[in-house]
C-alpha cells in the first residue's frame, strides 16, 4: 500500500499546518532532508516530537515551523546548545515555543504505547524528579495487584511519523539496519508515515539486525540519497561531524541563520 513519491510531493501531501509530527532517528538515520523540505514548504504551527531534537529541529524551530516541542534531550550532540531552540523558548523568536519535556524512557514508552494502540504506558520513571510538576503528561498509577506506585505517560500518536532508512523495495517494504532507535514505533504509532530511503532496490536482502516495515503500514516512501546527512546511514556514509561543529555559530546568530535558510535550504532544493 505504500506509495513511492518524490520528497516534495510526499511532504505536500502528508504534512499539514498544525500537525503533530515526529522525525525520529537515534543519532543514526535522522531524516534531515525531509525536515528541510518541511521548511521549504513553509509549514506552520507544527507540534514537533522527537526524543533528541538536534540540528534539524533547531532549523525547523528557527524557521518558525513549530509552536510546540515534545522531547527528552535537546542539544547539538558533542557540541553544545541548540541556539534557535533557546531563542524560541526564551525570546519567542521567531514565534513562541511551548515545550513538553520527558525522559528518554518516557518518550520511548509513549511511542511504544502509540504503536500498541494503548492510550498510555507504565514505567518506573520520574519519581522524585521535578519533571512531573512541569509536564501534564506524567501521572502516578498504582499497580492493581501489588499497590506499588508507578508512572503513567500517554501514548504518542503523531499525525505524521517520518524516518529515514537504508532501503525500500518497489512495493514500499522498508529495511533498515544498525541502530534503529524508535523508528519502527514511530511509523506504527503515526496516523500517516513517510520513509525516506537511501535507495530503492528490486529486492530486499535479509540482513542481520535488520528491521523490516512491511509496505502495508507505510504511507509513502521517497528515495532521497544522502537524506540523513549530516547524520549517517550505516553502509552508505559516515556522520559529518564537521557539520555539527559548523552549525554552532550559524545557530547562535539570527542573521547567519537567516542567510543559511535563504541559501542552504534553497540550494538543496535546486540540487535535487
Amino acid at each position, binding site marked *: 500500500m505504500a506509495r513511492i513519491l518524490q520528497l516534495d510531493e510526499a511532504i505536500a501531501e502528508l504534512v499539514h499546518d498544525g500537525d503533530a509530527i515526529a522525525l525520529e532517528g*537515534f543519532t543514526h538515520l535522522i531524516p534531515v532532508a525531509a525536515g528541510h523540505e518541511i521548511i521549504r514548504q513553509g509549514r506552520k504551527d507544527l507540534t514537533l516530537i522527537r526524543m533528541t531534537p538536534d540540528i534539524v529541529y533547531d532549523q525547523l524551530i528557527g524557521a518558525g515551523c513549530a509552536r510546540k516541542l515534545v522531547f527528552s534531550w535537546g542539544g547539538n550532540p*558533542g557540541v553544545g546548545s541548540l541556539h534557535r531552540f533557546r531563542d524560541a523558548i526564551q525570546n519567542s523568536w521567531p514565534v513562541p515555543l511551548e515545550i513538553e519535556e520527558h525522559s528518554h524512557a518516557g518518550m*520511548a514508552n509513549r511511542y511504544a504505547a502509540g504503536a500498541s494502540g494503548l492510550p498510555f504506558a507504565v*514505567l518506573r*520513571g520520574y519519581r522524585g524528579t521535578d519533571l512531573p510538576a*512541569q509536564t501534564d503528561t506524567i501521572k502516578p498509577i498504582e499497580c492493581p495487584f501489588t499497590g506499588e506506585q508507578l508512572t503513567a505517560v500517554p501514548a504518542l500518536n503523531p499525525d505524521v511519523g517520518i524516518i529515514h532508512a537504508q532501503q525500500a523495495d518497489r512495493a514500499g517494504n522498508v529495511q533498515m539496519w544498525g541502530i534503529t532507535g524508535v523508528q519502527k514505533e514511530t511509523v506504527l504509532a503515526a496516523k500517516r508515515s513517510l520513509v525516506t530511503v537511501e535507495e530503492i532496490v528490486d529486492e530486499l536482502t535479509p540482513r542481520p*539486525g535488520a528491521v523490516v516495515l512491511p509496505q502495508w503500514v507505510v504511507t509513502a516512501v521517497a528515495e532521497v540519497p544522502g537524506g540523513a546527512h549530516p547524520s549517517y546511514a550505516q553502509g552508505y556514509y559516515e556522520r559529518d561531524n564537521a557539520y555539527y561543529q559548523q552549525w554552532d555559530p550559524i545557530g547562535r546568530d539570527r542573521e547567519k541563520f537567516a542567510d543559511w535558510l535563504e541559501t542552504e535550504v534553497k540550494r538543496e532544493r535546486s540540487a535535487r
Partner: protein
Amino acid sequence: MTTEFTADEMMTVGAARSLRDGAACFVGIGLPSTAANLARRTHAPGLVLIYESGTLGAKPDRLPLSIGDGVLADTADSVISVPEIFNYWLQPGRIDIGFLGGAQVDRFGNINTTVIGGDYADPKVRLPGAGGAPEIAASCREVLIVMRMSPRSFVDRLDFVTSVGYGTGKGDREALGLRGRGPVKVITDLGVLEPDPDTCELTLTQLSPGATVEQARAAAGWPLKAVDAPTELAPPTETELAVLRELKATIE
C-alpha cells in the same frame, strides 16, 4: 618516575578503575565512554558496554563519537530498539553500573541537567534536559557520577531535580521505589566523594594526588564533609596513561 598527567586524566582513570571486570555498564558519551573503554583495555577486558542507542556489548576499536556511532552497532553482541533498551535492560535493574554527569549536583547526589537560574519557564540557562539520566539514576544497581568540582556545580540546592540520587537523605530512594543503590561515588578532579553510610550525604573520602581537603571544600557550595584521613588516589600508571592517550588520539 611518574609521567605528568592532567586532572581530567586522573578523573578518567579513577572512573575506569571503578569498573569491575565482567560488570555491565551503561555508558554515556564523553568521559564515561572513555573511562569504560580504558577499563576494557586494561583491568576489565570482560566489561560489557551498553549504550542507550540500543547496542548491547559493544566492543569499539576506537572511541565512539556519539552514543549512536556506527562502530557500536558493528561490534555489539546485539543491537536492539530504544524502547527495549530502557524496558528490558535498564528498568529491571540488570545493569550494574551507570555513569552520570550534570551541570549541578547536590550533597545527596541529586543531579540537574535541565535548567539553571530563573525558573523552569524562563530559565537563565536552558540545558539539554533529562535524556536517559532519570532512569539510569533510578535503575542501575550502582551509579557513578563524574563531574569537575566548583561551587557553581556542587550546589547547596539544585535549580531543578532531573535525576534522583538520595533525595533528601537516607530512606528516600526506598520510599520512592527506586531500586538501584544510587550514586556510590562522585569522581571529581579533586578527589572522590562517597555517601555517608548513615546519612547518605556525600563525603570526601579520597583525594587526587596533590589535592587537599581545603581545596575540595572551597570547590563545594555546601559545607563539605570529609572523612578524617582521606586516602590519596594512586596516580595513573604508565599503562593507564598510554592506553588513555592512545584512545583519545583516535578521536582527534
